[in-house]
C-alpha cells in the first residue's frame, strides 16, 4: 500500500509524458495547418477556436508549431541521451574493465571535459558546425557523457571484485562475454537513470543554445527556437512564449520525476 502511494507521482508523470509524446508524434493528424504555413494577413492573432494557441509574427498556427517543435525537441532529447549513454557506457566500461594507462588516460579526459564549463563549450562548438538536427544531437550528446562514464566505471570496479565474476573468469569465460553477460547488466540500472536525466538536460540545452541563435534553424520549429523568437513579444503577445514554454516545462518535469523514481528504486 505504502509503496504504490510512493510511486503515484511517478505514474502520473509517466502518463503525462506519454500523452505529450503521443500528441507530438501524431501532430500531422491533429492539426489542419502546416508548421511553416505563412499567413501575413493573420499575424499575431490571439488564441481563438480557429487557432487554439493563437498565431505568430508570420501568421503561423502556434499550436501546430508547438507540436511539430515538440517532435524535434523530443527527438533531440532522446537521441542525444542515447549518444550520451553509448559514449558514456563504452568509455566507462573500457576504463573500468581494462584499467591501467588506458583507464588513466580516459579518466583524465573525463576530468578535463567535466572541468570546462559546458554551455560556453557548446556555444563555441555550435559555431563550428552547421546547426542541423543531427549535428545538435551529437554535440549535445557529446557534452554530457562524463557522468555516465564515471558511474559505469565505478559499478564495474565494484562488480569485478564480486565472486561470480571471479568464478566466470576461473571457468575460462572470454573477457568480452564477462563484460556483456555479467558486468553490463549490473551497471545497466544506474546507466538508465543517468540516461533518463540526460533527456531532460538535452532539451534544456537545445533551448539555451537557441537563446544564442545557434539552435535549430528556421523555418523548422523547435520548442527552444520558438521561445527564443517569442522573447521580443512576451509583453504584447504572451501566448507565443507561454505554450512552448509550458510544453518544455511539462516534458522536462515529467522526465525528471520519472528518472528520479527509477533512481530511487535503484538505490534500494
Amino acid at each position: 500500500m505504502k509503496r504504490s502511494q510512493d510511486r503515484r507521482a511517478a505514474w502520473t508523470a509517466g502518463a503525462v509524458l506519454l500523452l505529450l509524446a503521443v500528441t507530438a508524434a501524431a501532430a500531422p493528424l491533429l492539426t489542419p495547418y502546416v508548421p511553416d504555413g505563412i499567413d501575413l494577413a493573420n499575424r499575431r492573432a490571439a488564441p481563438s477556436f480557429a487557432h487554439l494557441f493563437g498565431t505568430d509574427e508570420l501568421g503561423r498556427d502556434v499550436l501546430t508549431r508547438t507540436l511539430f517543435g515538440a517532435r524535434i525537441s523530443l527527438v533531440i532529447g532522446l537521441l542525444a541521451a542515447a549518444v550520451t549513454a553509448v559514449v558514456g557506457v563504452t568509455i566507462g566500461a573500457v576504463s573500468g574493465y581494462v584499467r591501467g594507462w588506458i583507464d588513466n588516460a580516459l579518466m583524465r579526459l573525463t576530468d578535463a571535459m567535466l572541468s570546462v564549463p559546458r554551455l560556453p563549450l557548446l556555444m563555441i562548438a555550435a559555431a563550428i558546425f552547421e546547426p542541423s538536427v543531427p549535428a545538435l544531437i551529437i554535440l549535445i550528446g557529446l557534452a554530457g557523457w562524463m557522468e555516465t562514464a564515471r558511474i559505469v566505471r565505478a559499478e564495474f570496479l565494484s562488480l569485478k571484485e564480486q565472486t561470480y565474476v571471479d568464478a566466470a573468469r576461473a571457468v575460462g569465460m572470454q573477457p568480452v562475454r564477462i563484460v556483456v553477460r555479467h558486468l553490463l547488466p549490473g551497471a545497466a540500472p544506474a546507466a538508465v537513470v543517468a540516461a533518463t536525466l540526460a533527456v531532460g538536460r538535452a532539451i534544456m540545452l537545445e533551448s539555451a543554445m537557441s537563446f544564442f541563435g545557434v539552435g535549430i534553424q528556421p523555418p523548422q520549429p523547435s520548442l527552444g527556437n520558438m521561445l527564443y523568437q517569442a522573447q521580443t513579444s512576451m509583453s504584447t503577445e504572451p501566448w507565443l512564449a507561454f505554450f512552448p514554454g509550458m510544453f518544455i516545462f511539462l516534458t522536462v518535469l515529467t522526465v525528471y520525476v520519472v528518472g528520479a523514481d527509477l533512481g530511487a528504486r535503484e538505490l534500494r
Partner: protein
Amino acid sequence: MFRFVVRRVVQAVPLLVLISVLVFALIHAAPGGPLEMYLANPNVRPEDIERLRVALGLDRPITEQYLAWLKGFIVGEWGYSFTDGRPVLERLLERLPATLELIASAVLVAALAALPLGVFGALKKGGWLDHTTTVVSFAGISLPVFWVGLLLQLVFAVALGWLPSSGRASFGDGDLTDRLSHVIMPAIVLAAVHAAAWSRFLRSSMGTAVQQRFILAARARGIHERRVVWRHALQNALLPFVTVLMMDAAIMVTGAVITESVFAWPGLGSLFTEALARRDYTVLMAFLMMTSAAVVFLNLAADVLYHILDPRVSVR
C-alpha cells in the same frame, strides 16, 4: 594529509594543460577571428585587415600561436585583449567581483530553499509535503533560464515596478537595499537550477543520516525529536552537502552566462558572450582556463575539506 594535497595539486597540472589544448583548438576552429568585427565599418579595407593580421600575429601557424600562448600563460603574461588592448588579467579581474556577488547570492538563495525542502522531504518521505517539494524542486530545472528571467522582469520591473529590471546597482553605487534589489531576480533565476538538485541531494543524505545507528541511539535515549533532527541528523548530512555546494558554485559560472546576459549583469558571463562574439581569443582562453581551473581546484578543496571534517574517511 600534506602529501595528499601535494599529490592532487601535481595531478591537476597535466589536467589543465589538456584542457588548454582542447579549448585552444576549439576556439581557433570556430569560423571567423578577432579581425572580422572590423569589417562592419565600410572604411575598413582588405589592406587594413591584412595589416592588422600580421601586426597581431594571427598569420602564424596555429601550433606556434598555441606554444606562444602557453609560455605566456605560465609566466603570467596572459596577453592583451584583441578588443580594447588592455591586459587580459585586468579585464577578468574587474568582472570577477560582480560574478562572485551573483554566485554568492545564488548559493545563499539556493541553500535557503534547498535546506527546508530537503529536510522536510526526508522526514516525511512519501507524504504530501515530500511530493510537493519534489515537484517544486524539479520545476526549478524544467524552465528555460532566459524565459523565466524575462518573465520576472516583465512582472516585477515593468508591470509592478517593485524591482529594477537589470543591472548591478543604481547610479552612484547605491546602498545595500539598492544592491539587494538588483541582485534578487538574477540570483533567484540562477539558484533555481541548483536548489532542485541540492534539495534532492539533502533529502537522500538526510534520509541516510536518520537511519544511522547513533541517531537511533539518540532517539532511544529519549532526546527530543526536534533536537535529533536538527542537531544530529542535519549536522551529519551537511558535510556532504557543503562539498556539493562548493563544486556546484564553480559550475554556476556557466549558468551565469545566460543569467548575466538577460539581466545585464556586469560579470564574467557577459564578458564571455561579448568576447565570443568578437572572437577575442586571449580573453576567451583566459576565461575558460580560469573557470576550468576554478572547477578543478574547488573539487580539490572539497575533497580536502571532506578529509579534514570527517576523520573517518582515510586520506588515501
